[in-house]
């Protein structure tokens, strides 16, 4: 790796823009002549739609269009596709998901009709004048309950509400492992449904050009090419090159904005019918019922150990709640994504994952920061700690005994891990944890009426997201250099980190680079955000594009300097003839390359180059974390008092940004462990956690300082040696924090507790463990 800016903790170039309010978000953008679209949503979890009366709404002031599901059917719009590819046993049921419901609504918040008007208020007024007559039906609300006999049916074509059955692993080997085990632990676990809750709600502006019958969608999104793929052919029935998607600044996404949503279809279709731009901006609380939810996996996980504590087999039997429809990658998360990480950092010879996907009358579920890996790690770490506690092993020693230490390592599912500092991270975090001093800290807490617990967990991330990525390097007239990538930043700092990579390799000043992203007109292809993939996948594509630029530049330099290409040395942005003063720098070459007269025979003008990175390799970020909590026995409140991460992300292009990514993920993971929970009423299917007043998101005061120590074990899977850091925190924190809470409660006999560890749940657990006494005997 070249010396230089890579590895430097540079502050983000985008900070000034974001911190001074100069960021540009979809809702801020001018769209002259734009109309406003408002969506009327189902108030029922499950109902037949008997009729929709739109007459009054159509005549209201400012109203230009009212659409229902029938109108979309007449217009021939296709259903939103589900591109997830999952090797299921038997079929994967993908019911039609139309942008507006037709004869039935299947979750609270499902779009039923939309109004387009001159102002947002007029659109809302008219939406209130639409009368929908519903015949309410019983609702299936919980994933596991929906799969049980007698549950209300969400879809005719999915008997028993089963969307799919998935199995991966060697059942016979797993059964053999359990048969000869000295110890078996089995846990019933719930990885609860959560909402990513980015600060910027979804928003979109749709345009249509009648002359060319082409569409333009400006959106707060994270994956323009993939969304276009799903939108153009399957829904609009036009070739992809007639649909342009682009995103301005995006105020957080965490995966939620990777997907095609009904509202995207609505603004484009309305723009086509009306010949004017159409704007839609979600309300903050609309997002809780109508965007997409995440996680929601529950079931039994079992671990078999021999007498010395070596892991023999791992088995998970899970129900995954998909919600009412298959969202884009909904079925892929609890299957493919989880299975890649099963067993995590441990050598487990036999693994079996069984998952049943369930339809329920709830909002669809899809990928969110970590997507599958939080689930795999949570079950593993809960099992390991339970095994240590029940069988009398030291929890750190038990982990150490089972860590993968020899690389490359082939997992039970045949996935090859090339590198990792698992043991190094565990040793380091154990030292930082000061386990020896814990007894004194626990006693000190107890003196203040608090129970203290220490949780230590390892984690493994399998980072890549969609395979393959594209990048281009383009020299502008003004001396600036555009770096175009098919990945996307929505706050991660790509304008900074990719400039660091390019500056070192091209020998040009950091300031000379501009990032081009998230626009299908300017970026040929790409897989956007997701899966902690940008530096690994996109950075590699960028390196390849830079190498192509340098190849062209070398050829031109050789021609201009009348030297053989191989006699030129490239350093600090300059090609020089070895052993002489003769040379030419890159900006001069870029200028010269514009004039065909300067070029050698057969060379096309310009130095610009693009490259595809065809890699489908996964990187394996990992680490070990420790948390300490104090539990208030009287109220059940948990205070997270200490946290330490020791993580491996390979080479760090920018340790400051890496640290920020890890800390942001940790905050979300802490939220999942202690606070966050999407709650539907189990009978009516009404959403009870419908705004931040009831959906508890962590605030700064809920999060202690989050120091991250890096150990860097570079990977050979990409030329930068980097591993993805974007999701790790949200993967590692839930088990680490929950193990600390369970450690605090262990002396009271509490061993079963699900996330989020809310004050009431803890109080109940204490209450039940103490046989009904309000406060357990000390």
């Amino acid at each position, binding site marked *: 790796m070249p010396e230089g800016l890579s590895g430097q903790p540079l502050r983000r170039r985008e900070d000034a823009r974001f911190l001074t309010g100069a960021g540009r978000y979809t809702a801020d953008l001018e769209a002259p002549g734009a109309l406003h679209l408002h969506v009327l949503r189902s108030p029922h979890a499950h109902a037949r739609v008997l009729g929709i009366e739109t007459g009054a709404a159509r005549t209201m002031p400012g109203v230009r269009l009212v659409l229902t599901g029938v109108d979309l059917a007449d217009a021939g719009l296709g259903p939103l596709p589900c591109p997830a590819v999952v090797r299921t046993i038997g079929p994967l049921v993908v019911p039609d998901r139309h942008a507006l419901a037709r004869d039935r609504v299947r979750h609270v918040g499902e779009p039923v009709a939309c109004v387009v008007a001159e102002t947002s*208020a007029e659109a809302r007024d008219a939406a*209130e004048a639409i009368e929908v007559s519903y015949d309410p039906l019983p609702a299936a609300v919980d994933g596991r309950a929906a799969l049980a006999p007698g549950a209300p049916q969400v879809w005719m074509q999915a008997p028993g509400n089963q969307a799919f059955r998935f199995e991966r692993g060697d059942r016979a080997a797993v059964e053999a492992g359990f048969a000869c085990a000295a110890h078996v632990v089995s846990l019933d676990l719930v990885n609860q449904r959560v909402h990513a809750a980015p600060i910027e709600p979804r928003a979109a502006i749709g345009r249509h050009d009648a002359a060319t019958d082409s569409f333009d969608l400006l959106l707060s999104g994270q994956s323009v090419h993939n969304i276009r793929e799903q939108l153009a052919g399957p829904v609009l029935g036009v070739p992809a090159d007639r649909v342009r998607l682009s995103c301005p600044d995006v105020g957080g996404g965490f995966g939620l904005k990777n997907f095609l949503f009904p509202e995207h279809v609505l603004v484009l279709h309305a723009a086509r019918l009306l010949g004017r731009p159409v704007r839609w901006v979600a309300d903050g*609380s609309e997002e809780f019922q109508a965007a997409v939810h995440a996680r929601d996996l529950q079931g039994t996980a079992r671990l078999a150990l021999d007498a010395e504590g070596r892991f023999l087999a791992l088995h998970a039997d899970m129900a995954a709640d998909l919600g009412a429809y298959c969202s884009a990658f909904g079925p892929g998360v609890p299957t493919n994504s989880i299975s890649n990480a099963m067993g995590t950092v441990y050598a487990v010879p036999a693994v079996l994952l069984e998952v049943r996907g369930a339809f329920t009358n709830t909002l669809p579920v899809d990928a969110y920061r970590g997507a599958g890996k939080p689930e795999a790690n949570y079950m593993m770490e809960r099992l390991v700690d339970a095994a240590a506690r029940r069988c009398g092993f030291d929890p750190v020693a038990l982990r150490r005994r089972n860590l993968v230490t020899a690389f490359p390592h082939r997992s039970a599912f045949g996935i090859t891990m090339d590198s990792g500092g698992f043991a190094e991270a565990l040793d380091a975090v154990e030292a930082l944890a000061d386990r020896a001093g814990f007894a004194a800290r626990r006693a000190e807490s107890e003196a203040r009426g608090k129970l203290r617990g220490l949780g230590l967990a390892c984690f493994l991330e399998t980072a890549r997201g969609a395979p393959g990525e594209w990048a281009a390097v383009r020299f502008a007239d003004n001396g600036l250099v555009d770096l175009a990538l098919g990945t996307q930043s929505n706050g991660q700092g790509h304008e900074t980190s990719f400039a660091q990579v390019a500056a070192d390799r091209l020998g040009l000043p950091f300031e000379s680079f501009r990032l081009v992203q998230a626009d299908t007109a300017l970026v040929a292809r790409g897989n956007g955000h997701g899966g902690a993939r940008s530096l690994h996948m996109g950075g590699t594509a960028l390196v390849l594009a830079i190498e192509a630029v340098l190849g062209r530049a070398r050829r031109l330099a050789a021609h201009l300097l009348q030297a053989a290409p191989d006699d030129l040395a490239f350093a600090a942005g300059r090609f020089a003839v070895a052993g002489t003063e003769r040379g030419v720098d890159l900006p001069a070459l870029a200028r010269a390359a514009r004039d065909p007269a300067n070029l050698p025979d057969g060379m096309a003008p310009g130095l610009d180059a693009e490259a595809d990175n065809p890699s489908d390799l996964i990187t394996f970020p990992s680490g070990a974390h420790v948390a300490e909590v104090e539990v208030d026995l009287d*109220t059940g409140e948990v205070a997270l008092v200490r946290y330490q991460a020791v993580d491996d992300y390979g080479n760090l292009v920018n340790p400051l940004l890496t640290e920020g990514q890890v800390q942001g993920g940790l905050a979300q993971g802490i939220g999942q462990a202690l606070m966050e929970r999407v709650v539907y009423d189990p009978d009516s299917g009404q959403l009870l956690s419908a705004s931040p007043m009831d959906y*508890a998101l962590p605030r700064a005061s809920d999060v202690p300082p989050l120091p991250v120590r890096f150990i860097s074990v570079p990977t050979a899977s990409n030329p930068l040696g980097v591993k993805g850091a974007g999701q790790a925190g949200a993967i590692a924190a839930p088990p680490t924090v929950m193990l600390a809470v369970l450690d605090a409660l262990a002396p009271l006999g509490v061993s079963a507790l699900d996330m989020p560890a*809310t004050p009431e749940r803890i109080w*109940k657990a204490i209450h039940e463990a103490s046989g009904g006494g*309000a406060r357990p005997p000390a």
Partner: protein
Amino acid sequence: MYDFDYHKPSSVADAVKLLSADPDARAISGGQTLLPALKHRLNRPTYLVDLSGIAELRGVKREGDKITVGAMTRHIEVQNSPEVKSAIPALAYMATVIGDIQVRNRGTMGGSVANNDPAADYPSAVLGLGATVVTDKRRIAADDYFQGMFTTALEPGELLVAIEFPIPEKAGYAKMRNPASRYVMAGVFVAKTKDGVRVVVNGAGPGVFRQTDMEQALSANWSPDAVAGIKQASEGLNSDIHGSAEYRAHLVSVMAKRAVTDAG
């Protein structure tokens, strides 16, 4: 939000005139409750009467053995008021645990007490201290003022002008915050005044209420241990996704003990 007209009078008399002229007019003080309701279209006032231009509604005064807080006094002003801090520190402390800094910079005591959200903080201090609610027309004793969830003795068009708090010998407050909203899950305000001991519970029930068993216990023995063992019945208490009625009942005993400790 639906369309509405907007008025900003500069006297109580003008505000009252505006409010009584139209039953669908609404006063707005800090807007921390009303604005979200308007945004969600849960409320459709013809016009809003903004009270922030009325100087006589603002500020804290100490006169003899009472503290008078104007209706438009913001939570942050109560929190920082030297008069409140020295005379009724429990009330100043209470202001510090309302919502977050943005809410405290906008929200007002009058708005909170007029609204009487069962999960609000101030109503417990008003009832616990036996305060008097002063309106443009009359003086209402706290005992007669609170009438259950979001309901008070205020009549349509009646303006809350100030609240007079008798200065207690001792008072204390403890609150368990709702983890999402930071409103009260269960809270207890205790006070010892020349008229006796009061223990008021907020957050746990459909409105503020006095906990008479605890009042008796504290009258006999003012100490945290005197209330710690007294159980609150869970019947009639609130139950939601954050806490069952049983949990809230349990919290009442815990908060009572802490409130007495806080009072000293």
